């Protein structure tokens, strides 16, 4: 390795680029799919976003959001869901900074106490709003540590103090560690009781309102059956009007890969996984072939050494192990460099790079908050290491094996 610095440098850089591209790919999906702060329940999370409603028999139906009364009166009674949370996001919400003319735009969520069971925010101070505060529509809320710093210049000792949101005073009940905009289902800087919105339980038509519903369930199939049963019962007792739960609690992974409304439009997860594995393979295979060529020419140069070692008692297996081991050291060096490149790229792009594969990338966020869970995920280390091993095997095993199959004397000469 040290004997041929140029070879080692080229190999390490080639590996680093391969690992960087594949790790970035893995990181993009890791952020979307893996249990990550504060969305630790992702594997058991289901969403209900859209309700189809209209006159019975009519081919044209409206598509709307579910209502809070649907949640309160029906969905909370589901046996197959351990958590049912309703939320709605704010729109153009501004916090007025005290003693200052300035105001800052904030991400707001109006929700219920279940939200804090669904998304396990770390509270640095205080607590989420209580069920009583929710029922009473108390003007209180939890704010993120970063927002606390912006408003109060500190993120401690501020529980009980008030802040102004859209020129309405709210009392701080707790300060939580801010998540990332890359996780839009949970991300918020201000979390208020849904009941502070006067129209929170308004229904324009039965079941139709303005919230999104999120469930935690161990059994998605049972959950779908129960939700469908609500629609069936309702439709059978209404002669003129019918509803349908279009996306029918969709699982988190389905939600990641499908932004559409109708189930028929959903891309099957299997084909998405296949496509992504294919991309991953290509990202890995092309550099592996290049590196394999590099190793192959290097093996020719080292053929004599291999022959000498064989003539003095080295077996094919021992030498193969030696070549793979030496190569693994180079590959892992490249892997570490690749990880550093990914981090630098992600950090310098303020996280924008992680939205690279989003098909509906209309995100106006230019700088994403990158939590430690995103950057230092053990899963990403494991992925990178496994990639190193695969790359090592792909690039070194074949040329080494071909070289070792020759008679000893052919190696020496």
């Amino acid at each position, binding site marked *: 390795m*040290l*004997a041929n610095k140029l070879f080692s440098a080229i190999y390490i850089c080639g590996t680093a680029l391969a690992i960087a591209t594949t790790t970035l790919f893995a990181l993009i999906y890791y952020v979307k799919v893996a249990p990550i702060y504060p969305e630790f329940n992702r594997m058991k999370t289901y969403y209900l976003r859209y309700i189809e409603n209209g006159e019975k028999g009519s081919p044209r139906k409206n598509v709307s959001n579910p209502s809070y009364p649907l949640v309160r009166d029906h969905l909370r009674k589901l046996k197959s869901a351990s958590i049912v949370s309703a939320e709605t996001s704010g729109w153009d919400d501004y916090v007025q900074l005290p003693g200052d003319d300035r105001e800052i735009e904030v991400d707001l969520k109006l929700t219920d106490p279940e939200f804090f069971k669904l998304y396990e925010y770390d509270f640095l101070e205080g607590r989420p709003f209580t069920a009583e505060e929710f029922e009473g529509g108390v003007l209180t809320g939890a704010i993120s540590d970063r927002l606390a710093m912006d408003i109060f210049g500190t993120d401690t000792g501020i529980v009980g103090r008030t802040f102004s949101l859209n020129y309405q005073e709210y009392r701080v009940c707790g300060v939580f560690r801010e998540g990332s905009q890359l996780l839009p289902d949970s991300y918020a800087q201000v979390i208020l009781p849904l009941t502070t919105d006067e129209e929170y339980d308004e229904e324009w038509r039965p079941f139709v309102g303005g919230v999104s519903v999120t469930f935690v369930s161990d059994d998605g199939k049972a959950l779908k059956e129960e939700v469908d049963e609500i629609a069936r019962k309702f439709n059978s007792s209404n002669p003129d009007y019918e509803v349908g739960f279009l996306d029918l609690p969709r699982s988190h992974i389905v939600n990641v890969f499908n932004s559409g409304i109708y189930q028929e439009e959903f891309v099957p997860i299997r084909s998405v996984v296949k496509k992504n594995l294919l991309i991953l393979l290509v990202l890995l295979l092309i550099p592996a072939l290049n590196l394999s060529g590099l190793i192959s020419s290097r093996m020719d140069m080292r053929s*004599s*050494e291999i*022959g*000498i*070692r*064989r*003539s*003095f*008692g*080295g*077996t*094919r*297996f*021992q030498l193969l192990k030696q070549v793979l081991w030496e190569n693994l050291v180079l590959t892992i060096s490249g892997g570490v460099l690749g990880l550093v490149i990914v981090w630098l790229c992600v950090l310098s792009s303020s996280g924008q790079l992680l939205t690279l594969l989003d098909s509906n990338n209309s995100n106006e966020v230019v700088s994403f908050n990158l939590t430690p869970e995103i950057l230092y995920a053990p899963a990403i280390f494991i992925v990178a290491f496994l990639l190193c091993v695969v790359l090592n095997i792909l690039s070194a095993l074949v040329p080494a094996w071909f070289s070792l199959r020759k*008679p*000893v*004397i052919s190696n*020496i000469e």
Partner: protein
Amino acid sequence: METVIKLTDISKVYTTKTIETQALEGINLEVNKGEFLSIMGPSGCGKSTLLNIIGLLDRPSGGEIKLFGKQLVGLRDKEMARFRNENLGFVFQSFHLIPTLNVIDNVMVPLTYRKGAGDRRKLAREALEKVGLSHRTTHFPSQLSGGQAQRVAIARAIVGNPSIILADEPTGNLDSKMSEEVMQLLHGLNREGKTIIMVTHNEAQARDTDRVIHLFDGHLVL
């Protein structure tokens, strides 16, 4: 006298898509323990091929090889490797030291593949002392003269205490003074009881050995 090497009807054919070359044919040879045997013949007559077959570095196309009474044709790679490691030492014309290893690490190579070899560094140092190069342990092959490099190669060949040493034109790349030093070393090893088979073009060196055999066009000639 104990026969340590017995070749019976050994042949070697090199085949390409269009040409078949008979490198060796009908070779029968016995070498006794402690014998110093020279193989001579014109270039391309099959001397090195024969030495490589005896050293299990190449497989014969036909015939039998017995070393220490053990039939070796058809052994698996692992068994061959072990046999080479324990019984055979090689000295090549171009030394074939590993350029990225220093002298002592080069000498230790055979011990790397031997279980229970003991203190490898100590054994390597002793082998280097024997060839008069104990002061050059940290040098790299590129820092050695031809004679020194060949002496390191001899140290590597004897470090594992093999019974048989196979030398393929060991002085072919050396001047006369260095050739003399190397030959003295080989004769010294032979006096200690090693069986030595040497391929050479040098008649004077061959005359100093116990027996000389001649090869011509892949056949043994008397």
